[in-house]
């Protein structure tokens, strides 16, 4: 389980995260939903151990991310908001690099890469340098890279950004499969429809605070409207601003 309690984080004068608490359970897909600048990326950065909170606590499998980042890093797979691949390395080389950084032995790593290439349907392009890849191909490689050490916790920052319909569908299938094998998937998005199609639980963030925490149906009910977008706008506190 991923568990976040009273997280606070500022960058200079900007208070990116004011007070965020939530849980993301195993075998479920949890979405962090919010407009741009709501604090989603900052929260995910703290969970992926590359940023430290000013106050509050974040635990993954009961391990504090600030106190024992090394242990946490072995159990998380992170897909950053832009794929962040090395352009002069091939798809497979990108994946292999992170597998080696996870200290995997060659005996474990090579079959794992083969399996991921098949699973993510990357055989056509995975041996080419990533420089000319389409957005969909990049996301697949980045996802394979995040999953290479078979992490239990998968953190995805706006994974469908820039993907076309087919690539988005393929990605949804992959995320659903992760859920079926019992992984804990946490992903951020600002697209209501996507969250609706994929998620079990949704956490709406607005202005660095939690606006809603529950299932999709509960969100609809609370907002008193069938229109999900309207519900999202109300919850994220966007309507007051406009």
């Amino acid at each position: 389980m991923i568990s976040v309690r009273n997280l606070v984080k500022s960058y200079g004068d900007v208070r990116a995260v004011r007070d965020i608490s939530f849980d993301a359970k195993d075998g479920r897909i949890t979405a962090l939903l919010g407009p741009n600048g709501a604090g989603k990326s900052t929260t995910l950065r703290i969970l992926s151990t590359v940023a430290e909170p000013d106050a509050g606590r974040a635990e993954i499998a009961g391990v504090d991310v600030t106190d024992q980042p090394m242990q946490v890093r072995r159990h998380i797979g992170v897909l950053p908001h832009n794929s962040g691949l090395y352009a002069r390395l091939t798809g497979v080389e990108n994946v292999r690099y992170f597998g080696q950084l996870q200290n995997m032995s060659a005996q474990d790593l090579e079959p794992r890469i083969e399996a991921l290439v098949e699973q993510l349907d990357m055989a056509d392009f995975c041996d080419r340098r990533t420089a000319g890849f389409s957005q969909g191909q990049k996301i697949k490689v980045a996802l394979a890279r995040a999953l290479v050490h078979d992490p239990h916790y998968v953190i995805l920052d706006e994974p469908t950004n820039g993907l076309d319909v087919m690539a988005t569908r393929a990605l949804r299938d992959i995320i659903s499969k992760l859920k079926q094998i019992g992984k804990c998937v946490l992903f951020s998005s600002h697209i209501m429809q996507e969250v609706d199609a994929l998620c079990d639980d949704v956490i709406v963030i607005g202005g660095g605070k939690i606006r809603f925490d529950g299932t999709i149906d509960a969100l609809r009910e609370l907002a008193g409207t069938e229109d999900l977008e309207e519900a999202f706008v109300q919850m994220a506190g966007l309507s007051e601003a406009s």
Partner: protein
Amino acid sequence: MSGFRVVFNKEFTDNFRDRRTLLSSFSVAILGPIFFVGVMVFVLERSLGDQQISFAVVGAQHAPGLMSFLEKQNTQINSVQAEEPRKLVTQGAYKIVLVIGPDYGERYARGNVNTLILIHDSSEISSTRRHLSQLRGYIHQYSRTIGTLRLWLRGLDPAISNPISTQELDVASPAARALMILSSLPYFLVLVIFMGGFYLAIDTTAGEREHGSLEPLLAQPVDRAQLVFGKITTTAVFGMMSLLVFLGSLYLSVPFVPFERIGMALEIGVAQLINVFVISVPLIFFAAALLTVVASFAKSYKEAQTYLTIVVLVPTLPLILAQLMNLETTLAIMFVPSLSQANLMADLIKGEGASVINALTSMVSTSGYAALLTWVAVSLYRRERILG
């Protein structure tokens, strides 16, 4: 495999595939010595060729004595006929024209003054002026010899007409010129070491951040120290390869310089080059760590390029200062990175050999600075601000 090895292997492969990195790492190293030897050959050939003066003479037949004297002085005399000797110069046929009047022989016999005309263009380049003054010198020498003989014939001491005499010694001999160019070699040494790692330092830091790969990288279970060691070592290895290419290129191109013709025995042998390489190793790591630290502060690739261009200039400043102040090799200098290596290299090339204490002082102190800078780099990567 340790995190260090993994990072090193990846950075090496990655950057070895980058044409821009390879070009900037090795172009100075390959072309530097070739350029250097080219300049050297050009300057030496010119200064050797300088010694023969070529000029035209109008009316040579009137002064056979003077002509035979001049011919003995390593000159090339072109005897010409001309109505208007000026035009030979203004129209560019000759640089210098000596005009001897038809009454030369008669005046000579009577002991009168003979005035010869030297036509030249003073706006011409310096080599003509040098030839002119040399020719003037020869004519004066001839004139004095004749004068001296005449005084003797009349029973007078020739010294009476020569109360003061001067003797010139031109230190800008071809050998001195060669040495001056040689002293620029250490600049290349320092430049090559810094240029070798230039783009790697950017690519592994600011470049990694700009491409968005730094964030997932930092989420991997690798100690930041190993990460930074891996990056700095790759940068250093490129600096090292660049230096090896430079020394190899130097070794192959120096034999083309005609040192023997100026009576200099300069030999850049394998042993000397190995010594130069050994004393440079600490500077290579110093350069790699310095470039990495500075590039880590930059927000983008371009910004890093700007910063590092300045960083590459900085280590050459002490070299210029040292030459202006004419610094001798002292122990104190050995504590200054780049300056100490440049000094040691100069000593090694001149064949004087470097003192072991100086070399050790330089190596130990530069290694110390390199370690300090590496520590700074590691602590930069331990802060989350590195993500920008």
